């Protein structure tokens, strides 16, 4: 076991996979010489030379190149600096990556990873603070993961790199400095598609993603003060979903809150709410409560931004509504 930052855990996973498999390469803006603006790729260029490349600012083409470099035998790991730029990647994801495995009748697989980071809270403004999880999760053929702990960051990035299909790997700007135990000796990849039970509880299930898991934990603390036992589940994998974990928890608590930092309307919480209704309708004593970012651009000023992005208080309030 070693304590390390989330960003360091990602760096470790990249190093391990690049050392293990020559076909893995890393590219993106500022990832080589500078080591990435969040320092996730630090030192990789020194260790792996040309397999780590700084690129021009051309997200659309870089994503399309990841798809076909993967078809041609490489395992690209592309860094898109902010999730806000995912719209630039979407054509390649929807009209290329999503298509070929099925349409070409299984002739090709596309083992690439698109790493990006989203989320707000630090005054980066409307074009650098969004979570567009729902947009990528909507695309068939993509897997979407969003680890919260350093250990999961490492294990799931390794799994993503080894996966024969495209994986969108969602990080969060406020997670990079989070420290946690990482079992250095165990270098097995994680399993994509499994949720993580963060905290057990019998009264209400809170299903959250990415940094919202930390807010959900705080909300659970708050609720505990009122004698409410909240179960907190970190979904980890946004697609595919761990349906077993979800339905088992709702069967126990009969109340559910779903939390995601993206916008609400047509957002990721809609799928979670609809899926829970579909799979656990008879277990539900109240409608699933959705906690999401307000349906508006994210303002710069701190006094405004904090009203727009969800926090522990909003989650606790939703849990209380569910139980009311």
């Amino acid at each position, binding site marked *: 076991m070693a304590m390390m930052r989330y960003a360091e855990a990602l760096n470790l996973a990249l190093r391990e996979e690049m050392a293990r498999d020559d*076909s893995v*390469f890393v590219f993106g803006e500022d990832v080589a010489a500078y080591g990435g603006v969040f320092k996730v790729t630090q030192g990789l260029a020194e260790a792996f030379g*040309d*397999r780590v*490349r700084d*690129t*021009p600012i*051309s997200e*659309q*083409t*870089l994503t*399309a*190149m*990841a*798809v*076909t*470099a*993967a*078809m*041609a*035998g*490489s395992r690209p790991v592309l860094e898109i600096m902010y999730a806000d730029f995912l719209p630039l990647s979407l*054509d*390649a994801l929807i*009209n*290329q990556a999503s*298509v*070929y*495995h*099925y*349409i*070409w*009748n*299984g*002739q*090709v697989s596309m083992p690439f990873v698109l790493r990006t980071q989203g989320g707000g809270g630090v005054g980066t403004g409307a074009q650098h603070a969004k979570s567009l999880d729902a947009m990528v999760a909507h695309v*068939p*053929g993509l*897997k979407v993961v969003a680890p919260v702990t350093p250990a999961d960051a490492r294990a799931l990035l390794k799994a993503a790199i080894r996966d*024969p*299909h495209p994986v969108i790997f969602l990080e969060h700007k406020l997670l990079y400095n989070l420290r946690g135990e990482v079992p250095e000796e165990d270098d097995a990849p994680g399993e994509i598609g499994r949720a993580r039970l963060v905290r057990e509880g019998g009264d209400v299930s809170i299903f959250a993603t990415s940094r919202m898991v930390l807010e959900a934990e705080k909300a659970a603390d708050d609720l505990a003060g009122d004698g409410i036992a909240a179960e907190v589940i970190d979904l980890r994998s946004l*697609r*595919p*979903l761990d*349906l077993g974990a979800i339905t088992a928890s709702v069967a126990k608590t009969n109340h559910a809150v779903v939390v995601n930092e993206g916008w609400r309307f047509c957002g990721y919480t809609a799928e979670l709410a609809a*899926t829970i209704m579909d799979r656990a309708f008879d277990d539900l004593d109240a409608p699933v409560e959705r906690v999401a970012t307000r349906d508006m651009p994210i303002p710069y000023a701190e006094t405004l931004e904090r009203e727009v992005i969800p926090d522990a208080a909003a989650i606790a309030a939703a849990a209380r509504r569910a139980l009311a």
Partner: protein
Amino acid sequence: MTANSPSEQELLEMHRRMVLTRCLEETLGEMHKAGRTRGPIHRCDGQEAVGVGATAALAAEDFVTTTHRGHAVYLGRGLDPRRVVAEIFGRETGYCAGRGGHMLLGDVETGMLGGNAIVGASIPAATGMALSMQLQGAARVALAVFGDGAAQTGICHESMNIAALWRLPVVFLLEHNAYGLTVHHSAQSSVPELSARAAGYGMPGETIDGNDVVAVFQAVAQAVQRARRGDGPSLIEARTYRLEGFSTSDMGGYQPEDEIAKWRARDPIMLSRARLAEALGAARVAACEAAARAEMDAAFETALADPMPGFTPHAPSAPYSEPPDGGGR
């Protein structure tokens, strides 16, 4: 004779593939009129020299990507006519078991990866394959075929910049047929000669006669050599013309008759036939053409008798299914 001059045998084979393509297009035209095609079909009559000449200049292990109008590339690359026709008619025996159709045909065996119906997408596609080859240290080249309309897309610019910057082993072949859908190039492109843009990326650019299969072969062969040597990409603008409209759903009316007539007089198959007849005698050329015609007829006959695919949700659709036990409707 330059180092890139095709042999007589190669010339005859290119001719055969052009004729094969023309037979495919003409039969598709008839089938469409008879109401037997599904979805739009983009014929390349008059442009066969581009796809055929270019693919003839590739090695077996090279890659090629093309557009929604890729029939000459498919057949130029040596794909089996029967399986091409089967794919166009959505048969289980098609290259993609009927899932792709004529615009999205892909074949891993021959590196034909693949047709692409998003305008411009063939460009970054080939560039990505070239990057993979460079990283793998493989002397394999990727050829991107794309249209004059596609040259105005952002990904064309981004790809050319990246390819030139990294000296990727890719060849950009701009198939300039004067129109992007119904819009004349003068209303789409700010410059009449698109090869002029190569200078903005520091790579060689030239405009060639796209109806002369030998000119196409030679220009592409030279660019492929350059790419294979590690000297980076080139842009080749092959001027040609679309004789049969944009697609089977084209209502026409925008291609002037005299323009069509002018280009019909320079039909690439006619040009090639004349050249070959001189070298090999008209009889040998006619025999070659007849064989090609017969081969395509047989391809249609067999393919059309092939079965339609049945829907089996989870093979090879496994990675798509969500939730795992079914999803969908």
